[in-house]
């Protein structure tokens, strides 16, 4: 389709860069028809957190935290203080009566932790010279404490005072932390999930105790999420998805995504020139309580908690690893990937079960010169899992020139994506924006009393 100008004496687009899946430019269901590029970072932007319904903060390898107004695209604050890349960021809301105030806690490779006020841009608290850098943060709002995880596990109160500390035995340290019922929390440490219990005694001293260690994963745990009050899920590098009971920490379901297929399709993938062990790694998990969306390699898998099975999947959803996903609703989801695109998917009923491959898949291959030589797209491989539904691409957002690290949705206000190309892009619904502008225009007209 684009060959007309790629042709001639020009070199062909490299295989890595060309799209596996192309939806084309006709995307009636894609409502993001306006974009705004937000500049400010000097290095890879890795994290985005939503502060309230119109602000978000971005943080990245340049150690900067920037606060943005999503409605206008304005940069509200520039939080400077960290000398090295930010490794974790979270919001910390404390409520004083009716009013709640949201602060930001950041952790950086310079082994410091900071508390910021996003309204003023002030660094309210800071702790430096930690023993190791913090990899994850968890706020336990009920207990009014927060936890930092790295090589050691530390509990802090809201005034940034260390409450207790616990060394870990593992080299890799804690990579993820989630809160569990009954003042427990789960920490992912290499192949294990450790359950800790946090106790606040009468004299308000806090202590943590390791209660249990779950070592059912065969490989490093990449993702750990709460599914609902009674469930949490973890995903490993080897493609295992385990559903745990949140109270008694038993395995409820074990799904080894892709194990068979990855074996079977290895041949094809090698021919494609991009076989990586990360092909079946669960990069990211997200859930809405009913469905779990797993980003596996460059594919997407939708797992139904109720049915305990994969209900829809697409093995090659992106050209490269999927980095972040989100379930917008029960049928709509969104993913971003190292290939620089954000894609929107819809879970559709298939006329024929077990036929997840779409014409778009073939369509995309047209661009390859080599596609002729191929036996067929890998997605054609028959998959044993009985699929009831198909994952259909309904739109893509192309703008970043590097991997899209993360995105945050502000519902109808738009979507913010951040990327390794140092940029953030604010995607908006053009129609809504033009409506807002019209409102503004007539408002101003009224104010001015005429033109």
């Amino acid at each position: 389709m684009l060959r007309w100008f790629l042709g001639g004496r020009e070199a062909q687009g490299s295989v890595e860069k060309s799209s596996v899946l192309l939806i084309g430019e006709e995307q009636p269901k894609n409502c993001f028809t306006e974009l705004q590029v937000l500049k400010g970072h000097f290095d890879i932007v890795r994290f985005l957190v939503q502060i309230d319904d119109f602000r978000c903060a971005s943080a990245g390898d340049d150690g900067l935290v920037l606060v943005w107004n999503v409605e206008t695209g304005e940069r509200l604050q520039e939080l400077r203080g960290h000398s090295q890349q930010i490794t974790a960021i979270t919001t910390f809301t404390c409520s004083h009566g009716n009013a709640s105030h949201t602060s930001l806690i950041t952790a950086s490779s310079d082994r410091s932790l900071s508390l910021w006020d996003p309204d003023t841009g002030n660094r309210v608290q800071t702790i430096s010279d930690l023993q190791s850098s913090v990899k994850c943060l968890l706020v336990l709002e009920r207990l009014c404490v927060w936890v930092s995880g790295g090589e050691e596990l530390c509990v802090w109160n809201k005034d940034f005072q260390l409450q207790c500390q616990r060394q870990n035995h593992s080299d890799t340290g804690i990579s993820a932390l989630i809160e569990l019922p009954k003042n427990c929390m789960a920490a992912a440490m290499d192949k294990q999930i450790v359950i800790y219990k946090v106790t606040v005694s009468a004299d308000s001293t806090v202590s943590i105790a390791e209660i249990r260690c779950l070592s059912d994963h065969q490989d490093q745990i990449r993702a750990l999420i709460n599914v609902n009050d009674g469930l949490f899920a973890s995903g490993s590098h080897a493609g295992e998805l385990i559903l745990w009971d949140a109270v008694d920490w038993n395995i409820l379901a074990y799904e080894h995504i892709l194990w068979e297929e990855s074996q079977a399709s290895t041949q094809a993938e090698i021919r494609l020139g991009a076989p990586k062990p990360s092909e079946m790694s669960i990069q990211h998990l997200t859930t809405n309580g009913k469905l779990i969306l797993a980003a596996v390699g460059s594919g997407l898998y939708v797992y139904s908690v109720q049915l305990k099975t994969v209900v829809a999947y697409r093995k090659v959803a992106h050209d490269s690893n999927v980095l972040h996903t989100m379930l917008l609703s029960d049928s709509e989801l969104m993913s971003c990937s190292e290939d620089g695109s954000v894609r929107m998917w819809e879970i559709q009923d298939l006329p024929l079960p077990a036929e997840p491959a779409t014409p778009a898949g073939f369509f995309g291959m047209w661009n390859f010169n080599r596609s002729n030589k191929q036996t067929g797209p890998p997605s054609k491989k028959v998959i044993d899992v009985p699929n009831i539904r198909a994952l259909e691409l309904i739109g893509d957002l192309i703008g970043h020139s590097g991997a899209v690290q993360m995105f945050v949705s502000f519902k109808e206000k738009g979507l913010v994506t951040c990327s390794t190309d140092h940029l953030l892009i604010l995607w908006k619904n053009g129609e809504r924006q033009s409506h807002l502008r019209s409102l503004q225009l007539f408002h101003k007209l009224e104010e001015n009393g005429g033109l």
Partner: protein
Amino acid sequence: MIGSPDVVAFTKEDEYGETSPDLWAIPEEFSIPLHPLADSNPWAKTSYAKFTKDFILISEFSEQVGPQPLLTIPEDSKVCGTFDLNYFSLRIMSVDYQASFVGHPPGSGYPRLSFVEDSRVVLGDSKEGAFAYVHHLTLYDLEARGFVRPFCMAYVSADERKIMLQFQEMSLRFSQASECLKAGNRRAFAKELQRKLRDLEYTHSVLQKEEGLQREAGPQSMYSAHAVEKANELANVEKSIYEHRDLLRQITYYHHRPRRDPNAVTCQKCITECLNECEEVLDKYAKLSKPFAYSEKREKEEEGQGHINEKGGAEKVDTEEEEGVKRRSSYTPQMVKGKSAKCFDKRLKTLRELCNDNFYEATVELLKETERSFRGDLCYLHTCRLDRALRRKQMVTNFLFEEDLCGEDEDEGGTLRPFCAVNHAVDNCMFLNPPPIVLGPEPLELDALEPPDPSDPASETSHTQESELGLVESHLESSPSDQTLETQESSEETKGSLSSDKSGMGQAEREPNLDSMKSEAPDLDFDLMPDPDHNTDLERESSSEDIETTAGEDSGGDQTPVSLLEVVSELEAGNEEECEGVTDGACEMGSDLVPIDTACCMAQEGFLYEASDPADALPRLGQSAQPQPCQALVVNQEPHALLPLQNDYTVGSPCSESPAAGLELPLGNLGDTVSRISVEDGSDCTMSVSTGSDRAGSPLSYGGVVTLRHKKKAGQGALRFVRQYPFAMQALWCLLSGRTLVVLGADEGRVRRLVNALSLFVPGPGKCGERVQAWLSCPYTLTDLQRWKLIGLQRVASPVGSSMLYSLSRHSRYISILDADQRTLRCPPYRGRLLANIADHRTSIRRGSTYFLHLQSTLCRLASKAFLFTFTHHLHLPVSSTEGPEVVEGRRRCFLQEQLGLSDEDSLILLYLSQLITQQYLQPATGSSAAAATCFSFNYTTSVLYKI
């Protein structure tokens, strides 16, 4: 008759009584004038002129050789051809407008500088086929007779009408030039005086020493003839010192004097600088003069007996002198000869020497600029003016396709920017409000139809008071200074009568062309002031003046603002903000001029009589400040006005017009539209005048013209593109609907040419074409896409090139790609009909500039549709709360498709333009380009490939 050039009449009687306005006609200012002289061939006029182009001539009335041309602008001898400059100089300089008083007026000890306002005259030489706007000015020269050197600047053209119709603007521009010259001259003159004073003092001290020696040597009882001669010489030198000192003081006071000439807005900074200089010098010499102070009177009575007193003074002088020598070692004082050389022996200073060098240069620049701006024939100038006026009406959408007017708009409020040609233009911004505007901030309501005078009694009374004060001063005046004043007056009248003519004609005739020469409001107060008695009857002078003032005030207040108000009331409330502003400004000026005038009188007299003693003035206040029955006075005035000034070579005869102007008053309601016309004309004129001033002021806005020229050139390219490429329409559609067009090619020249041509179609290209990038050889990013709407991209056969192509394909949904090498266009399909008439490859338009105009009109139409669409409330927002967005959407579609008859794709153009307008409107302050760049909208449609 060589001595009397034709004085061109300013009005035609036959078009006088035309009324019965057509309500549906387009406003006068926008109509294309039918040639009033239907029988005359427009080209016939120029045929017998001996020069090909208009030019500016500077001449001098030299006291040695008579009138002589000094300089023409442009300085090309071809310009004047065989035209006899000497002869023409003779004619234009033979208007002895100044009647400058020279020498010692009786009753005053010292020679007086005459402060003469410039005069403006239109002269014609029908035999030569030359007509000229002549601007006379006087410069000071210590060595010249009466210390004055008369000069004139003339705009010479073969087209009489051109001069007549551009009179206001010419007057303004030449005033600026003249002010510049004069400012420089005053400085130079002060310096010269300073030098002369030093010489004189030196001489004085030397003489005194000699005299003292002689007296000691000789016997006490008798004086040798030699000694007497020495004493006389000494006395002469002393007298000379006094004279020069007085001159210096006069020149210093000059700046304090408010100007009567509304065009003569000077640069505050220049004035202040000069003033400081002068005052410094004056201070220095004021010290010297003290010891002599009391000897002054006696000296006049008996010159011979002054020796005793002077002796004491002389010592003082010596000591001062010593101090002085220390201070200014750079200059060695010279002995001054008792008698100056005969006037034919000395070499007169050149114009350049008379002014400072940089002032001279600045003036010449200014005149060059003036010449440039008046280039072209009247039709052209008129069309340009119309164009500007029209564009001013659509301020909101101008940014889309029109070149920038912003610089010119700033001045539109009717403010005359004080102009300074000498470089410190930045400081001028602070002085945007020259005196004429400051004085009467009368807020004009749209519905206030009553005459403004009663509406603002406070200012009225204050005015009267001022005028009373002025009158008191005038009573105190002694005759010689009266005379000076008078000459000024008459020169003023020259102008005043001119403007009255114009206003009279403007009101009377409905001649559209006149908009270029509408009366400027400030002039009107001079209307009823022609007083021929001035020159003859000195006794009556003061009283007649006071009549004048009152009358002028009254009529000024009554007459003009009424019509102005009518205009204001008839302005459409909608999109005429600028217009209003202008009219307001004009009104203010109109009502302000009275106080200025009186204040001017007052200050002037104050100057002439530095002994303005308040105690003396107060008792007189009551007697002179009697309320006069103004109407009667006006009537009384008229007979005088009927015969005056014909002898002066003024423009137009005030005799017939002044009464007419007066009679206009009662007709107010009947001649509604008529007067409206005149005033609208007036407002337009103010615009054009200020436009002119601005353009002259900042070369930047002159760049706008260059842009236009550049655009016209691009028109040729665009025409070629349209004719060559069958898919031109699609390309234009992409640009107009806001889809970035990338012109891809290996050959830079070709890509640049294409981009230049296509840049005409980029809506809102920015003041300097920020949204267009003619040539880009590095890979672009998404940010570039939203910044630029038209990009010329280098096609390179290298890895860089392939990555660039990769990003092109990646961003293909945002862009259209025109491949200049393979002659293909990849863009969404366009099937609309809207652009068919500007992108018809079988068009019969052959010339680029024609195509450009065709294009402009189409785009202008588009812009106005977009304007309508943007600002129609119900197309965007629900009318009632029950309406959902779908209803509004449906209404919008209905409007676009059925009322405007646009297909979906054509609607996109309008939607995009509307979006731009909205953005521009919402963020005018922050700078549209920045705001627009932050948002980038697109839509998801498939592209197709067009080939030749």
